Every structure is written in C-alpha cells, then in structure tokens.
C-alpha cells in the first residue's frame, strides 16, 4: 500500500542552529488513526509543519500522496494543501461574526468551488460533526467544544486525504475534549486518515498507533489493536 505521507530522513534546523528534527522516517497509510506524542520542545510541532507542507525540511524528503514537495513551488504546495490536507488547530481559528456554515464553507474557499456548492457541502460536514442544528450560530454563540467541532468540519469539508489535528483538545475542558475526540473517532471509522499531535496520554491512547517524539527523533512507533 502506498503511504499518504512519507518522511525520509527529514532534518529541520532553524536559523540560529536549533535542530528541531534530527533525521525522521515516518510512513502514514490510508485509514490510520495516529497519535504523535511527546513533551513540548520535542519537535512534534515541527513534524506537523513538515507533514502539512507548511514549511520545507532542511534536508531529507517529504512525499505527500506521491508528490515530492522539495521540488514544488509555492503555488503547487498550496494546491496540495487545498486538495489533500485538512488542519485542526488548538485555537480553533474561526472567523468572528461569521456563521458556522460560512466558516466551514471557507474550508473550500481556495478549491474553485462556487459558494452555493460550498455551503451545501458545509451543511453536510456540520451534520457529520453533530452540529446540524447550529448552522447559523456564530462562534461566540457556541461552546468551546462546539467551536472545535466547527473547525473539524471545516477541515473535512473538502474530504482531505489526511486530517492533522494539532492539540485539538488543548484548549478544552475534559468533557468538551472527549466530545471532540469522539467526533474524530467517528470520522476515522468512516474512513478518514487522521494524525493527532498531542502531549496528553489519554488522547494518544485513543489512537491505534502511537509515535513518540523526543529531541527531534522518533523514539517509538507502536501499533496497538483497539
């Protein structure tokens, strides 16, 4: 099976000599639910930037769905993100004063799909995360857990090949966190490939595969049957 994401000996050194990643090899296959765990400063955020083609490695290769990103210009990297990758961030990043429906519809803003079609699909995506009744609510009218579910809906509205969730429960109380994790697991059960970056072990335990990062290296990669 071809991996969706393949990292080959990826090294990332920031200006000033800080080595965030010191040679990482990682394959993520379709249908996986994977947790990347590690303490802060371990390099897991940098790993997300590599996998999410938000940044380029200093050396090594990053291959997304067969595309070697090292050779792609900005336009094509952006196209890759727009069509294959979905992101959920710790701070939701929802547009204030804009309805849940339009926030989700903006997930497809750069895909060349007309607004009416974007809204139709946004309504379906909100349905999938259990917010079918909240289409017209604006972010400040929603709870933290609901806001993060809107952000998840925005990430999956264009059916990405892989969904990255960066500390998705970091800003939530445990009840809301569980709610969001539940949504992610449902999506995974429906076939979405998901990588969760977290430092919480309860979150990691919910995944079928745990990759531990420490000091810029992968120190363990464990598949556990659920």
């Amino acid at each position, binding site marked *: 099976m071809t991996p969706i994401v393949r990292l080959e000996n990826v090294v990332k050194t920031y200006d000033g000599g800080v080595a965030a990643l010191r040679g990482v090899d990682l394959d993520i296959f379709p249908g996986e639910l994977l947790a990347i765990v590690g303490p802060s400063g371990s390099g897991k955020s940098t790993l997300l*930037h590599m996998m999410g083609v938000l940044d380029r490695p200093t050396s090594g290769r990053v291959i997304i769905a067969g*595309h070697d990103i090292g050779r792609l210009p900005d336009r094509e990297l952006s*196209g890759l*993100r727009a069509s294959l990758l979905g992101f959920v961030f710790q701070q939701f*990043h929802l547009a204030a*004063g*804009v309805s849940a429906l339009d926030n989700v519809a903006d997930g497809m803003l750069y895909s060349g799909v007309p607004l009416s079609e974007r809204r139709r699909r946004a309504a379906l995506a909100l349905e999938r995360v259990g917010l079918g009744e909240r289409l017209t609510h604006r972010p400040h009218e929603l709870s933290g857990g609901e806001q993060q579910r809107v952000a998840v809906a925005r990430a999956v509205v264009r059916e990405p090949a892989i969904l990255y969730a960066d500390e998705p429960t970091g800003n939530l109380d445990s009840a809301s966190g569980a709610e969001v994790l539940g949504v992610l697991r449902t999506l995974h059960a429906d076939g979405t490939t998901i990588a969760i970056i977290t430092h919480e072990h309860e979150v990691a335990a919910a995944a079928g595969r745990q990759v531990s990062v420490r000091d810029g290296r992968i120190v363990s990669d464990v598949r556990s049957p659920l």
Partner: protein
Amino acid sequence: MTAVTPSRLMARDLLRVGLAGLRVRRTRVALASLGIAIGIATMVAVVGISSSSQADLLRRLDELGTNMLTVKAGQTLQGEDAKLPEQSVAMVSRIESVYAVAATGDLEASVYRTDRIPADRTGGISVRAATLGLLETVQGRVRTGSWFTTASASFPTVVLGDLASRRLGVTAPGAQVWLGGRWFTVLGVLDPVPLAPGIDRAALVGWEGARDLLSFDGHPTMLYERSTPEYVEAVRSVLPRTVNPEYPEEVTVSRPSDALAARAATAGAFTNLLLGLGAVALLVGGVGVANTMVVSVLERRREIGLRRALGATRGHIRAQFLAESLLLSGLGGVAGLALGTLVTIGYAVSNGFPTLVPLWAIGGGLGAVVVIGSVAGLYPAVRAARLSPTVALGTA
C-alpha cells in the same frame, strides 16, 4: 499518484473576502476612508464649482450674443472729447451684415429726485439721449413700466437704468424727477444690461425730446450695433471709417462680450491652490489607508496562517489585502464624489448656476482612488504574502 488541483480563488470570493475583512473593523474603516473622502470631495467640489460658474457665464454669453460691437467717440488729437457725426447711425445701418444699430448721446444735464437737491449731488448718474432701437440692440429688458415709443420719445419722459433708479430711489413708473431744470415723468425702469454697463448708470431721454427740451445737438457719443455673427470681424474693421470718415483714428471699437468671455475662461481655470489642498488631503488619506492596512496585517497573522493552511497561495493573500485596500479607498472615493457633488449642487443652486460636475473630474477622482488604494495596499499586501505559514499560525 493523486492529481493535485491547483488552488483557485474566484473573483467573487476575493470580493467577499475583502469586504468581510472591512466589515469586522467598521470604525477604523470609516476613519481611514474619511481622509480619502475629504480629499476627493475637495477636488470634485473645486472643479465642480468652477465648471458650474463657467457654464453659467457661457450660458449668459450665449443669451446675450457675442455679435455686438460698440463704437465710442473717443478723444480728438488735442485731447478733447470727440463727437460722432450726426449721420453715423444711418451710415452704420448701411453696412450689409449689420441688422441693428442704436446710439446714445451724452447730455450736459443732470437728474435729481426733486428740485430741492443741491446741483452737485448728481449721484454719478449720467443723462443720455437714446435712440428707439437701443433696448433691442443691447438686449436690455424693462423691469417695470415701458420703453419709449415714437410718441413718448419727444415728451419729457425718462427711462432709468438699474443703478440710476436705485440711486434716485425711484423704482416705479409715473414718478417725477427733476432733470435739466424741469420735471420729467419716469416711463420705465430697466434690468441690468450686462453687455452695456454704462446704461445701468444712466437716465435715458428720447432722442427727439432731448433735442427739443434739452438742446441736444444730435451727435451720438456711443454706437451699439449687431451684425451676423460670421461678419463681426469684417464689420469691426470697417466701422471706424464708416462712423467717422474724417477722423477714423478718434473712435474706439470694442466688443463687450470679450470681457465676459475672458471671465468665463478664468472661471474655468479653477483655483490651483484649492486643487492642491485637495491633493494633499488625498495624499494624507492614502497614508491613513496604508497605515490601517499595515496594522491590519500585523493583527491578522493567525488568519493569514489559517488561509495558507486552507490552501491559499502567496498570490491569494496578496490579492486579498490589495482588494481590502482598494475597497477601503474606493469607499472613501465614492463618499467623496457624493459629498463633492452635493457641495457643487448646493453652491450652484444657491447662485442660480446650472450644476455641472465634469465627467473627467469623476473619472479622474475614481482613477486617483484606485491608484492610491493600490499604492497604499501594495507594501502591506506583500508583507502579508511573505509571512511564512508556520510563523503566522503562531505555532513555530
């Protein structure tokens, strides 16, 4: 290998994104566009007001006609006041393209409200003999009363110019004034005559009446003539010799409409100083827009990061902020155009001018706004586009 479709941002969506960016920060948007609005309003109003007053002058010029010439007796070589020959009216009327000719002759007499006013208080009013055709030739209008008829021209009757009537305090026909040592009845009062301002300050007496009652010698001081417009210059060149064959150099021929036309030309050359002020206001407005955009980019790093994660290219981010800047200054520009036009309308209506805001002023205003919006937005937009997605997301 899965095919990658390149990122796309449709024009309609670009507009939506730009508008959404402005909607969130209304106060700031209003203040930033106010500067542009003031600049554009100033320039449009300056151009509009001067164009409107020019249009008014040209309209009046059209009504009055530019085909009237006046001939003044002038002075003799010895420096005395010259007189035109008695037959000069008849001779001018024989010039082929001349269709109207009239004359006034200065009289020694003065006019007073009553016989008890001291002789030296003439109020600057001149007494002139006038031929019957004068009113028609100078296109004057009678405000009240009537103009001379063949009959009334030989009676002791007088028609007052606008200023003369006000200085005398006589505004209604039928009143008596003391003129040349006897009572004259006021026949009528004229409206101001733009092409012959001398008539405004005159008390006019019929040609025959002046001869009979005021010992007028019948020599005209001033001739007024109108000819077919194409031949005005030709008539002008033959007038001195026709009017005064013996001393053609004594007479002065002039075209009163030239003064009005000159005024119209100056009115059109709108005040450069005011226009410069408008340009400075516009420039300051542009700096305001640039400042607002720079602050906006700093505040919205996370939004930029998110958009990059959603697949926006650098170009899309640049276009978004340029669109915002253009909309911002465009908003101010449209408000300024409306304001400037309103000011022009107000000024024109209160002065009885036709309202005229030239299309080139509107087009130029909008063009300036587009240029300012682009220039002011360029630097912030480029900065926003250069921001690395990871830095923008604040996760690096």
